């Protein structure tokens, strides 16, 4: 049943098929207008929808990038402020606790003219 045909048999069969192929009946005379009318009731919005979709995606991506940038900037500012505060505290406490600082603060006790 499913024996393969040789090229000559294939060519002859193909010729036979084309010669005696089933002929489709002609279309109804109103079919073209019917299809065009049906099509007219379904306007295509694909392109508009697609462009609006891209606008939406662009706005969303822009907003996301802005938010990420703001977050990074804020982290940097906080880090800088923290660093400045730390250095301020270190310098302040350092000057208070250092021997020079103590000496500076107690000079009036040691060099009191009345006590010497």
């Amino acid at each position, binding site marked *: 049943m*499913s024996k393969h045909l040789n090229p000559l048999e294939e060519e002859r069969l193909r010729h036979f*098929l084309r010669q005696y192929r*089933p002929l*489709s009946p002609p279309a109804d005379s109103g*079919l073209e207008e019917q299809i065009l009318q049906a099509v007219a009731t379904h306007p295509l919005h694909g392109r508009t929808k697609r462009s609006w979709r891209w606008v939406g995606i662009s706005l969303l991506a822009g907003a996301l990038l802005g938010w990420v940038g703001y977050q990074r900037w804020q982290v940097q500012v906080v880090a800088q402020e923290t660093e400045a505060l730390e250095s301020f505290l270190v310098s302040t406490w350092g000057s208070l606790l250092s021997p020079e600082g103590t000496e500076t603060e107690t000079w009036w006790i040691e060099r009191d003219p009345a006590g010497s």
Partner: protein
Amino acid sequence: MQAAKDTSDWELIQRCLNGNSQSFRQLYRKYQQSVRNILYPLCGADLLDDLVQEVFIRAWKGLPRFRGSAQFSTWLYRICWNVASDQRRRCARQRSQTQNLALRSDVAHPGPDLMHLHYQQALQRGMAQLSPEHRMVLILHDLEDLPQKEIAEILRIPVGTVKSRLSHARATIRQHLLQEGITP
């Protein structure tokens, strides 16, 4: 030639997408006969106009999703196959009517002579013996003259499967014709 045809199709599609439904008329006129030639051996004459209409309306609605990665005809013939498959599922119980297709259609469209008519009927009976999958490959390749690669794209099957289905379909048809006393 092929590239010019495709460019023209692409331009018509772009015009349709820009709201010019009259460009769709040109696409319809260009492809309606091929669509009929594919659908008729698959589904018969009774609902042919309705099915052709369904193919073109589906195509219209699907135009915004057509990316142009394949030819328009490939995409359109894929829709034909889908419409024919849907119809087959809807009317599975009418299989016997489809097998009697030849008698009904030839009454309406008699051939030029009796021998021609006899061959046409024998061929239609032979094609009715094929599964829709084998029949579609035979129609596209041997009747519509499409290359195997394009048929593989239309049916979304490997080229090897197209070859094997074609070989099987030809052998079955030839065997049927021989049984009816016809040597093609």
